[in-house]
């Protein structure tokens, strides 16, 4: 088996473009801070001291490497394919978000910033940011839509317990998009003291690249773990896609391997009409929002749509620009799973594997549930369990999935 990547892939370019997607669409006041961030990040990326400190924290604080669990009962239940679960849910704070937060937190400290701000949807990124702020002794403010504060209440409490200030956002649909808006307004007014710790592979360059790089460890571990378990590459990878950080983290090191199918799962919500889902590739078109050119759910006048998903972390009208490019190339396939299918997957994984996934991750599981029965006996697939379901227990109860 070759360990060398088969294809060349080196995105983004110097202007922060993944093909035509990405870029840097921010007001002039933010141009200097994002340029400064890019320079600081590129320096840190090549700095062995920085990388050693990050690796140490990922290992001894966050709990890396995470296991790759062979889901025997799920595999048998669904047919013949061998299904592996990448256990990002076992990380400290309960999701992959800590990978990026530790990286950006250390970077912010190097840049002399005293204050971290963040947006959060499901609260997992907010909790991870609050955690890192506590660890590094930085001030922390998290913006969260009021709708999300209500449906992810345990995470609001966790953030406050960790010493963060949580500010509710009542504009728009009161969800992730509106939280990003408010975080950007805070940042533009406090650029000297503050680092905006963006939680997904989106926003102006260098965020999509940087957040991907900090999550790339997921795919690197999977590659090594599959070699050990199966002595081969997996046939397919499945991950949910909100902004797209856990999925790009899993996919990235496999992009040059044409035999590995990459499947991103978007939130199909409760219908196909605009406003009823967050499936950008089936309902959106290219546009500019939150500093990037990418696929966006919008109306014909260029106004950004509200979205719906039972999963707060997928409830976002745009998608990270690298996914837009992988979609254009046909290198990755993007599909959608409904609220109901995700809830069914939560129940199935809980009963068969003793793992209660986050609603976000359950979207990826649901897609495998649909496809596995049609796969051959030789198929080896990996599903990213990006987070654990503790935060969603209230929603599970309300949905009556017992």
């Amino acid at each position: 088996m070759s360990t060398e990547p088969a294809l060349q892939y080196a995105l983004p370019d110097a202007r922060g473009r993944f093909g035509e997607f990405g870029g840097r669409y921010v007001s002039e006041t933010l141009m200097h801070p994002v340029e400064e961030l890019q320079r600081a990040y590129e320096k840190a990326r090549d700095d062995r001291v920085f990388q050693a400190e990050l690796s140490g924290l990922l290992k001894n604080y966050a709990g890396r490497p995470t296991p790759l669990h062979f889901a025997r009962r799920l595999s048998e239940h669904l047919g013949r394919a061998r299904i592996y679960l990448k256990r990002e849910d076992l990380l400290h704070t309960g999701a992959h978000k800590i990978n990026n937060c530790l990286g950006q937190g250390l970077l912010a400290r190097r840049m002399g910033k005293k204050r971290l701000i963040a947006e959060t949807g499901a609260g997992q990124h907010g909790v991870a940011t609050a955690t890192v702020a506590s660890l590094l002794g930085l001030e922390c403010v998290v913006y969260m839509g009021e709708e999300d504060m209500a449906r992810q209440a345990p995470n609001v409490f966790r953030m406050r317990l960790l010493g963060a200030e949580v500010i509710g956002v009542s504009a728009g649909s009161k969800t992730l998009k509106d939280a990003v808006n408010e975080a950007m307004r805070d940042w533009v007014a406090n650029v000297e003291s503050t680092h905006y710790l963006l939680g997904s592979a989106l926003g102006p360059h260098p965020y999509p690249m940087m957040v991907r790089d900090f999550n790339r460890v997921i795919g690197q571990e999977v590659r090594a773990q599959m070699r050990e378990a199966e002595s081969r590459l997996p046939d397919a990878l499945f991950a949910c896609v909100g902004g797209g950080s856990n999925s790009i983290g899993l996919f990235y090191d496999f992009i040059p391997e044409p035999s590995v199918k990459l499947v991103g799962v978007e939130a199909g919500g409760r219908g196909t009409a605009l406003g009823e889902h967050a499936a950008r590739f089936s309902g959106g078109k290219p546009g500019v929002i939150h500093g990037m050119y990418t696929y966006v759910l919008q109306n014909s006048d260029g106004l950004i749509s509200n979205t719906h998903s039972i999963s707060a972390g997928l409830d976002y009208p745009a998608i990270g620009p690298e996914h837009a490019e992988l979609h254009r190339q046909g290198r990755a396939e993007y599909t959608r799973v409904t609220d109901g299918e995700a809830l069914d997957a939560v129940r199935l994984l809980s009963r068969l594997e003793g793992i209660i996934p986050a609603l976000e991750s359950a979207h990826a599981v649901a897609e495998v549930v649909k496809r596995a029965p049609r796969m051959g006996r030789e198929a080896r697939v990996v599903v990213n369990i990006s987070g654990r379901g503790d935060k969603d227990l209230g929603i599970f109860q309300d949905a009556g999935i017992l």
Partner: protein
Amino acid sequence: MATVCTGRIETLLRERGPDGAGRLIVYLTAGDPSLEDTEKLLAAVDRGGADLIELGVPFSDPIADGVVIQRASERALRAGTTLSRVLARLPRWRQAVHAPIILFGYYNPVLQYGLERFARDLAGAGAEGALLVDLPPEEAEPCVAAMRSQNLDLIFLASPTSSDERLELVSRFSTGFVYIVSVPGVTGERAVLSGAVAPLAARIRRFTNLPLAVGFGISSPEQVRQAQALVEAAVVGSALVRTIEESYREHGGQAIERFVRWLISGTGVQFTMETQRHKD
């Protein structure tokens, strides 16, 4: 930039007013509270003496704006305001005022409308140009080309956070004038004019002879005069939009006309800093 057009705005801002004073630019959001009212409000600020009008196109996610203009955008969107409806009415609105009009907004609605089509319709309406807050020079080549082909100005922002390299870039791309953001932050009224304006204006002057206008935070006649002492023009946005929010329904266009006159002359009693600020 290959072509340099000395347009109407640049000429206007370069000249002082009849009494030797600097120029006043006002901002209001199109469609707030309705598209019908916008015509009356444009006429009111024009009668009040505004030299140039920035007409805001409401956007669903106005991340560069503070709460006052956010609320105006929400009202305008609820009233059904879109870029295409603004452009459809703009020829008539433009006829009704003396002051030149530029559109002020966010990039995505313009991108979806079509850059060439936007420039053509803007020119056809008799407007002078546009300012798109989330479109920095680095991403602006296609939009600049479309605007230049119609002899329209595209105005770029300069901020206290801009490096000299960036000010050079902004100066090279901007036509009409360069818009100075007085403080890092979103739009909204502030108690005093930022001390950052004078040094920033001096830095920009090293790169361009274009007129400069300063905005973000200017809300009183004193601040207008302070700004005009440093640069060619002062921009008042949130303070006017809030006056529309508070006084237009009850007192009509006359109240808005009086407010603009007060900004210029400092007289006209009912608009003091105290009464303006009580809701902040």
